[in-house]
C-alpha cells in the first residue's frame, strides 16, 4: 500500500520569506500523481499544486512550486514571498495512475506565518 509521510508537524515562516515543506512517499508504481492541498482553519481543503510523475519538470503555480525527486520519492513544496493568508494545514497527497484509486494523504504540516 502507498504511504505518504510529512515529517514536519509544524513550520513557521516570516512574512515575505520562503519556506519549504517536506513530503516523502512510498510506492511500487511508476506512474502516479502527487498533490499539495491547503486546509485553512475551519475552511475547505483546496488544491495548491499537482505533479504528474511522468513529467520531469517541476510544477509551479505563482508563488508555489515543487521539488519533485522521483528516484528519492520526495515531493517538497516551496512557498515564496509568504503571506499571512498562507497560514494553514498543508497536506501532501498521492494517487495511483488507475482510475478509481483514492487520494492517500500525509498527516499534514501546520504552517504559521509571522508578521
Amino acid at each position, binding site marked *: 500500500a502507498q504511504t*505518504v509521510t*510529512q515529517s514536519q508537524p509544524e513550520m513557521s515562516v516570516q512574512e515575505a520569506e520562503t519556506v519549504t515543506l517536506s513530503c516523502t512517499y512510498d510506492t511500487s508504481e511508476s506512474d502516479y*500523481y502527487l*498533490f499539495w*492541498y491547503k486546509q485553512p482553519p475551519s*475552511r*475547505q*481543503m*483546496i*488544491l495548491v499544486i*499537482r505533479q*504528474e510523475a511522468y513529467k520531469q519538470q517541476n510544477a509551479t503555480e505563482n508563488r508555489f512550486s515543487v521539488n519533485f525527486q522521483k528516484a528519492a520519492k520526495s515531493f517538497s513544496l516551496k512557498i515564496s514571498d509568504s503571506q499571512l493568508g498562507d497560514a494553514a494545514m498543508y*497536506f501532501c*497527497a498521492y494517487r495511483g495512475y488507475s*482510475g*478509481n484509486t*483514492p*487520494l*492517500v*494523504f*500525509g*498527516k*499534514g504540516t501546520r504552517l504559521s506565518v509571522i508578521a
Partner: protein
Amino acid sequence: GAGVSQSPRYKVAKRGQDVALRCDPISGHVSLFWYQQALGQGPEFLTYFQNEAQLDKSGLPSDRFFAERPEGSVSTLKIQRTQQEDSAVYLCASSLLWQGKETQYFGPGTRLLVL
C-alpha cells in the same frame, strides 16, 4: 452548485445514536468520495462512488458505516450505533471524472462529536 456542500456542519450525538451526514457534490460531477479526518491527522479514504455505483467501500471501518448515492448526485453517509471513536470530521469530495490529474473538490466537512 458553486461548490461541494455538506450538512450538518456540526453534529453532536450520544453514544449509540444513528447519524446521517449529507453531501451535495458539484453539479455534474460523476465521482464522489468520503473521507474521515481524525483530529490532527490527514483525511483517510472511506468510500467512492461513480454515479450511483459504489465502486469501493474498502475504507469503511465497520459495518456500522453505510453510504449511498441513489440518484448519482446527493450522497448520504450513515453511521449506526455511534461510538466515541467515530468522532472526526467527515469530508466529502467530488470530481468531474476521477482520472488522470483530475482534482478533487472538497466540501467544508461535518464535524461529528460522539459523547
